[in-house]
């Protein structure tokens, strides 16, 4: 019998593929997701090393005349105060990426916990949480975000530099509405997991509710959460930029991609690049995150494909 002849030597030649390797190989098949990954890595690199890469101080008004055209000294020209646009773009990527990463990780974490609790305990806990989530989901997001950021405009966090204090305040506003989709997602997963045999087994072994939630429910519903998180990264970048553009997000002089577009309207025919590059950065990062999310969805859970 062939099966009987399998000895330890032949078994050792069969390599067990790690989960990450399988996922990685499937991910690489999605060409645009890989391109998106490259773009995101470039942006992260630019954000981390902004202080090294930037040729000028983003806040300092240089001796260069305002609204100067791109030249060898200022490769993207200067803005209305003679500040180097390229340096400001680099520093802006710090704030924008920080906000989007913070918002998504915190709201996804809240969503996972609330969703798991809601789905696991059911009954009135579930219906209360679900009514709240449903109501918040139907509300028009942007007017409410504007409302909350307008309310928090004057508040600063003591002990933090101005830009980070503003960034955290705006992140809190975005988190307030960011946890909803993750909550629904995880609740749905938990509802179906709850009835499965391995959960019954854990319960009959006397595992506590918290243990079942943290060891069985959450790890098993993580794949769609990761996808949701990646897609959310692209969404939050645009939202934060929109708030800043409307004057309710992070306000100048702190540069963000959104507020760099705020004052370009007067000069945008003479210096169209002032309007072009900040928006292009928003668009490219958002698009990249969306494609990475799409690639991850294909890789992590082929059944999820829509």
């Amino acid at each position, binding site marked *: 019998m062939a099966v009987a002849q399998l000895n330890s030597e032949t078994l050792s030649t069969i390599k067990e593929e790690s989960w990450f390797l399988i996922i990685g190989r499937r991910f690489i098949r999605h060409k645009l997701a890989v391109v998106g990954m490259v773009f995101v890595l470039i942006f992260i690199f630019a954000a981390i090393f902004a202080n090294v890469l930037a040729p000028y101080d983003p806040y300092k008004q240089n001796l260069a005349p305002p609204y100067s055209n791109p030249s060898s000294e200022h490769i993207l020209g200067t803005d209305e105060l003679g500040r180097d646009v390229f340096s400001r773009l680099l520093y802006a990527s710090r704030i924008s990426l920080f906000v989007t990463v913070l918002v998504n990780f915190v709201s996804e974490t809240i969503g996972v916990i609330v969703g798991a609790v809601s789905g696991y305990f059911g009954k009135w806990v579930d219906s209360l949480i679900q009514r709240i989530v449903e*109501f918040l989901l*139907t*509300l*028009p997001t*942007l*007017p*409410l975000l*504007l*409302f*909350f950021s*307008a*309310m*928090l*405009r*004057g*508040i600063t966090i003591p002990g933090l530099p101005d830009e980070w204090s503003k960034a955290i305040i705006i992140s809190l506003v975005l988190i307030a509405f960011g946890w909803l989709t993750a909550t629904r997602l995880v609740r749905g997963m938990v509802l179906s997991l709850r009835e499965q045999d391995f959960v019954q087994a854990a319960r009959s072994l006397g595992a506590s509710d918290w243990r079942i939630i943290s060891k069985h429910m959450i790890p098993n519903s993580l794949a769609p959460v990761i996808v949701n998180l990646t897609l959310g990264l*692209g*969404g939050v970048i*645009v939202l934060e*930029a*929109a708030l800043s*553009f*409307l*004057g*309710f997000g992070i306000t100048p002089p702190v540069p963000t991609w*959104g507020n760099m*577009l705020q004052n*370009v*309207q007067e000069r*945008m*025919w*003479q210096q*169209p690049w002032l*309007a*072009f590059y*900040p*928006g*292009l950065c*928003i*668009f490219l990062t*958002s*698009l990249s*995150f*969306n*494609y990475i999310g*799409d690639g991850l969805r294909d890789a992590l859970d082929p059944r999820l494909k*829509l």
Partner: protein
Amino acid sequence: MTNYLIRRFFQMSLVVVAASMAIYFILWLAPGGPLDELKIAGAGGRANQGFSEEQIARIAEYLGLHRGPFWGYIAWLGGEDWFDDIGRPELQTSSCQSVESTCSRGVIRGDFGVSWNVARGSPVADVLLSRLRNTMILMTSATVISLLIAVPIGIISAVKQYSRLDYFVTTFSFFGTAMPVFWFGLMMIILFGGNQSPLYKAFGFPYLPTGNVILVRNPLPGSLLELLNATPGSTVDIAVHAILPTIVLSLLYMAGWSRFMRTAMLEVLRQDYVRTARAKGLRERVVILKHAMRNGLIPLITIVVFQIPGIFGGATITETVFNWPGMGFLYVYALGATDYPVAMAFLFISAVLVVIASLIGDVLYTVVDPRIRLN
């Protein structure tokens, strides 16, 4: 059904009251209200320019801010004309105390108070109504155009999955969801708007207006308005002004909705009854149009129904970029100018419309799909 509707109405009013309380109390707690501004103006030793305590108290009484959050909310919701009937005339605003007809009648009787800044002194309802027409023009045209294009495109793209058109549609919707509207709007303005636009300069392409709803002066030479000989305030004038914002908004909606339709249709095409229809030997055309499409269109209800609050509320960003004096633009302006009565009215009406829309949606689903039961 009647029972269900009664229960829903009860829940809906509860939700609306909770939402209005949240709006009111958050605004109450927020720093930077009108009184804070006066206090700041009074600080810094400019005694002769600033406001004394007494003056600030008088202004608070004029605006109704002296009554505190609890009675303030009651007055905002239910009016203040009955305060003297219950023996608390001091809770009324100063003008209401002297002239009975100036008393606020409260939101539930359709009185949203008086604007603080945007149009100081005029009733909020009038301010909102003056913008409603512009928003409705923009939102209805964008909604109708995008539905007419997105629905067929989504269906075709699902039927011909993995075709070239399908790839185009999915890529388009990816670009649309990642696109910051304000940037897209700015780029459109640079390309097509005003006599500085490169298309006009290079090719004499008739340029489009970049803001406002109607002309204030005669159209400039070279613009599309001059070409069409538009007179200020005419239909042509309004239509030409609406072109750019409508295009931007429609493309945005289309990106989302075509993908939504595609997903819904793909879902239906996988169903057993579609396979059965094919197995019966029906022509593909009949299978798609008679069996699949009818069911594929059901989720469209959600989109259409939730456009109801949208048609009132407008598109905040698009209206701001194109300087389109609609509701969304008004709301942003009111928030920036701390005109809280206007902002509150906007949010309150939006919340009511959202609640109504979700009820209409739920009821419509039972009409279209008898398998769904309300309970």
